[in-house]
């Protein structure tokens, strides 16, 4: 099973068209292996990006350098996935019983 230890999901609230354009550049950059859960389109909707642990520092620096506001929506993706998996397994066991 693919692991996501230390990966974070950042919620970004773009405030201008310039921010949107910068986020689109980020989206085109395949080097950081970002997974855009929601895409940059307008300032009305937040942009959520799943950032692998290895790219976290660089991505946060990029956002801060361009004064793009963001917060951490999911602090450690794997923790949430572990909880979810535990729930699936526990429920399956209860149903078997």
């Amino acid at each position, binding site marked *: *099973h*693919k692991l996501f230890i230390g990966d974070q999901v950042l919620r970004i609230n773009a405030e201008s068209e310039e921010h949107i354009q910068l986020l689109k550049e980020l989206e085109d950059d395949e080097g950081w292996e970002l997974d855009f859960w929601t895409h940059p*389109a307008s300032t009305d*909707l937040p942009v959520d990006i799943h950032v692998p642990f290895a790219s976290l520092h660089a991505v946060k620096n990029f956002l801060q350098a361009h004064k793009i506001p963001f917060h951490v929506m999911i602090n450690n993706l794997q923790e949430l996935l572990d*909880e979810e998996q535990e729930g699936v397994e526990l429920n399956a066991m209860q149903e078997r019983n």
Partner: protein
Amino acid sequence: ARSFNFGAYHTLDTIYSWMDTLVAAHPNLVSKVQIGTSYENRPMYALKFSTGGNKRPAIWIDAGIHAREWVSTASAVWMADKMATDYGVDPSVTSLLGQMDVYLSIVTNPDGYVYTHTSDRMWRKTRSVNTGSVCRGVDPNRNWDAGFGGPGASKNPCSDSYHGPHAHSEIEVKNVVDLVQSHGNFKAFISVHAYSQLLMYPYGYSCTSVPHQAELDSVGRSAVQALSSLYGTSYKVGSICKIIYQASGGSIDWSYDIGIKYSFAFELRDTGRYGFLLPANQIIPTASETWLGLKHIMEYVRDHPY
């Protein structure tokens, strides 16, 4: 059937097995229709809710076309049960199913769904092999014959929004297309996604308004009002292009363009904390509110034949 926990996420096998219990519990209302098989040869089913007749006006609902959107599938399970148990009890559902059939595809991307359970929880696409690429899968919501290959879809097989080699290249998409076209009497086509809290109508491939924009907008707003009445969840309503971004090859653009006027797509809830990982304890609240919105659309379709 009584032991099934609707407030939990389940594997494909469990969902398929539960479908059989639902059919067994409501044999005169619900049947399981195999609409084809997936790329990896898994059966694809739609639950057909019908009180008789052949090819009556029908409503199509699909969930889980994007594999990682688990709450979409989990909500569809709850709504299937709700529709079956409310028939004969809720006059609105009884009247709806007295006049129309409802087809509900709970797991529209079974290979992807299994893959999210076994290998990569974040998987979105189908699992088809892309010739000449190490990357697998096509975004099944960029693969429909509606502005195929246009803006908002990627030609890169490694992208999560890869449109595929040609329209309807994905067997999962083709199976739905074939069912809808061979039936010929669908009056509504509703796709259920997660998350973002949106109710959308065509177009996604173009930012021009559809001819029925005013009506679809009005129906959408009333549906969202019904949805929000339960927990106050806020939704935005609008065309895909105008409230998210331009995206070509989407399912509801295809359905609208073949003449199914009432084409909508839901993006179910997340309140900005979990994204695709909505905790299981929010499945039933999500499904319950969605059901109200969905029911409003279905009632409108029933009352406005065309």
